[in-house]
């Protein structure tokens, strides 16, 4: 009885308001397909051309990327090797960390495993949510990462967006004020390729893992059948 009273007294404790601060922006889903080699190659090109200037992917080697994505060493050397000398090098940022720190007052984080720390949908939305903000030091702000120190590096493609907020300050939608060189669909497609690549970059062995997994499970299934029959055979005289 006493136990019940305790439970009741606990249950009667003031229940605070339900208004949870849902400041999490709505995220757009993105289709990830690691077997789509052309998408990965396009993503790799964007990444090397536009992101490696500030960010590193310092756990990854150029030649490993080339091998996995079906790009020959020559092509890697000619087209992707701006920030390094040898194809076996790690993908380091072009801009030295101190310089970046001076420019952005923070060092751009390494992006090797960013797709494992952040969800693909987050990254996809982030790359499409930069908007003009004159109050920000770089002139750019972002709805999923407010006050981000990163400028919109792909504005020439996407163009300039303006964010429209509701009366209560919540984000409503974007308005394209100055079009870029790409249509919205093309820009979204490019970003899908980029995020697809970032997911690959987060775990290069992922596809191999799936493929091996199928064989392992098949083997175990067969193994189980034999193990089970063996058990039945031994146990048939146990009652």
């Amino acid at each position: 009885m006493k136990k019940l009273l305790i439970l009741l007294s606990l249950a009667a404790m003031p229940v605070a308001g339900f208004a949870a601060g849902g400041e999490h922006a709505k995220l757009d889903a993105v289709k990830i397909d690691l077997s789509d080699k052309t998408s990965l190659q396009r993503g790799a090109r964007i990444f090397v051309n536009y992101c490696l200037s500030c960010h590193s992917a310092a756990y990854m080697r150029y030649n490993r990327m080339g091998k996995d994505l079906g790009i020959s060493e020559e092509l890697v050397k000619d087209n992707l090797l701006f920030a390094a000398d040898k194809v076996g090098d790690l993908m380091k940022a072009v801009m030295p960390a101190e310089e970046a720190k001076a420019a952005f007052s923070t060092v751009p984080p390494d992006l090797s495993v960013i797709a494992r720390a952040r969800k693909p949908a987050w990254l996809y939305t982030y790359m499409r949510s930069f908007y003009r903000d004159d109050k920000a030091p770089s002139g750019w702000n972002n709805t999923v990462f407010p006050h981000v120190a990163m400028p919109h590096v792909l504005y020439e493609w996407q163009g300039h967006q303006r964010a429209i907020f509701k009366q209560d300050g919540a984000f409503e939608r974007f308005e394209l004020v100055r079009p870029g060189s790409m249509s919205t669909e093309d820009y979204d497609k490019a970003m899908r390729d980029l995020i697809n690549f970032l997911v690959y970059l987060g775990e290069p062995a992922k596809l191999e893992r799936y493929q091996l997994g199928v064989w392992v499970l098949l083997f175990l299934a067969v193994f189980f059948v034999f193990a089970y029959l063996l058990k039945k055979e031994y146990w048939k005289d146990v009652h």
Partner: protein
Amino acid sequence: MLTNLLAWIDERFPLTKVWNEHLAEYYTPKNFNFWYFFGSLAMLVLVIQILSGLFLAMHYKPDTGLAFASVEYIMRDVEWGWLIRYMHSTGSSAFFIVVYLHMFRGLLYGSYRGPRELIWLIGMVIFVALMATAFLGYLLPWGNMSYWGAQVIISLFDAIPFVGPSLAEWLRGDFVVSDATLNRFFALHFFIPVIILPALVFVHIVALHKVGSSNPDGIEIKKKKGPDGKPLDGIPFHPYFTVKDIAGVAVFLMFFSAVLFFAPELGGWFLEPDNFVPANILQTPTEIVPLWYFTPFYSILRAVTTDMMRFGLLPFMAVVGGLAIYSVRDMMMRAVVAGATAAILLGLFMMEAKIWGVIMMGLSIVLFFLLPWLDRSPVKSIRYRGWMYKTALTLFSVSFVILGYLGTKSPEAISLFLMKNVYWVQIFTIVYFAFFLFMPWYTTLDKTKPVPERVTP
């Protein structure tokens, strides 16, 4: 030729004797069910962890500047490194799943009851060593959750009066979690599972084979022997249970591989997203939570607030203490129990919530050790117990799961319904402790069914 060799060895080492005593002539109840797979599976996982850990240690660097990168090096540049790493990370969660189910079996069928108290106690020491190992290992990838998790848990020791702060400093080897901490955690994460755990498992099994295995009926098969002196309901462990366990291993490995190959993060339950960010002293994760296997205890730690002590623990302990004083017949003992109750109640008035949080968390594990003496039922197995124990065990299991779930959530959020997580956690903390602390009474009062002479299928 081979028989000669065996004879030669047997003269110098009791090989045949050991084989017979522990396998070929170890008589095991033939009515073992599903729940009896998890002992051998726990041993299998221990072997998986030691072997995969050995190969990880060949490439891992216990240095704050290199640790995170060395793990990614294993994932990318080491031949089959990703496989070894996922074996180990999946293995750690699998270990706890298997061990929790193994312990639950004990609760179902009263495996901890006499004459198996020592087996249970050794098992609990194994469990504590396992928790220590997992905690130590979690720091090694040097992710942000590794860092902050260790920071929070070690700072719990600060709550201990007088010696706390210097103890915490001694554990860290520094004023904060640092390179010195990482190095010693690596050394201990090797030592405990490779030296201590196998030794404990050995003793666990020696003790088990001394008294013999229990079974789902909770009766002693040694009491009914045939004319040949062998238990009528027993069958030799080998080959019967070796072949049975092999089939169990196959099923287990299917689950294990499904996770390992297709979802090694298991949606953040086995590998947390925050741990893919390198440790950062300046950037606290939004919610510092341990991995799922610690969250029931972590919840209990966080449940203890000043209000919880006043309105929850104080009346609860008063009831338990009152019942204990009333039930003890011996006057001397009664005085001792009354003194202890008074001390606890006074402590709940005087000491801070933070200290009581640590005490309650410790107690939530210590109470498991006491089960053989808390349980007063004339029967062992749930099959012959009454509604009280069945209800208590159900409530306890529910509370364990809910505490575990809410331990991964913010106390201020509402993850279930009606009220904030912290209130649910407080209610289920009381339920958790009620299972243990009221056990002497409800197991005595419970109406039990007659136990059969021989095992039932």
